[in-house]
């Protein structure tokens, strides 16, 4: 069972690409410390990669401004880590994509890569917002 000392919650608003990515990575680093895991822990490595892919997509396409930042929430216990990413961008048309782009393609791998690294990646259009939920068992 998860002990309270393994519970972790982090919330942030992200309003620019580079600073936003710094916050996303810093949140996973903090989670590693709380869980006592090192940089080569595969579950958190996979989760961090997926969070960065979904996060940078939101920061790039989410019509982000100081008035409409990306909302990011990270929650973990000893068994599962979950992230929510909320942005104000247009609907994501191909959110179900699983196929990797061909090897010569320079783009188009982010969603498939994120999905391959998670136990669950859910997308929901909620009013004028995009809501992503990322889940990884630890």
């Amino acid at each position, binding site marked *: 069972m998860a002990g309270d000392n393994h519970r972790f919650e982090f919330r942030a608003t992200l309003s620019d*690409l*580079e600073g936003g*990515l*710094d916050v996303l*990575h810093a949140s996973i680093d903090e989670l590693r410390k709380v869980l006592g895991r090192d940089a*080569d822990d*595969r579950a958190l*490595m*996979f989760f*961090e*990669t997926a969070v*960065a*892919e979904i996060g*940078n997509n939101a920061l*790039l396409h989410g019509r982000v401004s100081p008035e409409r930042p990306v909302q990011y929430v990270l929650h973990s216990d000893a068994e599962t880590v979950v992230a929510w990413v909320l942005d104000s961008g247009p609907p994501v048309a191909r959110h179900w994509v699983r196929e*990797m782009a061909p*090897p*010569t*393609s*320079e*783009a188009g*791998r*982010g969603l498939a*890569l994120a999905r*391959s*690294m998670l136990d669950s990646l859910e997308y929901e259009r909620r009013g004028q917002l995009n809501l992503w939920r990322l889940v990884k068992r630890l």
Partner: protein
Amino acid sequence: MSLEVETRQAENGVTVLAPVGRLDVAGAPALKEAIAQLVGNGPPRVVIDMEGISFVDSTGLGSVISALKQIRGNQGELRLAAPNQQARVVLELTTLDRVFAYYATVEEALAGL
């Protein structure tokens, strides 16, 4: 954290690019710029020393594919050296490990290039 790219020449004339930081959507333009400076001066032979790269995302990978296209388009050759575990996992999951030869060390990548 932006990506900084150091450039040096190895004894055999191969150019070694050594990026430091995250090779991600924010850092990829710096690698593209470094590659653009190499092509056009004869067939470039290039090793990207990935030891200083802490994290790679799909856009960062795209910049390496772009580099490979430009270098091969100029009859050159590109090798990757010393990717960390996260970079190797991303290369494998995207099947790009079949496209890129990567080596454990820069010295191994330089051998025979």
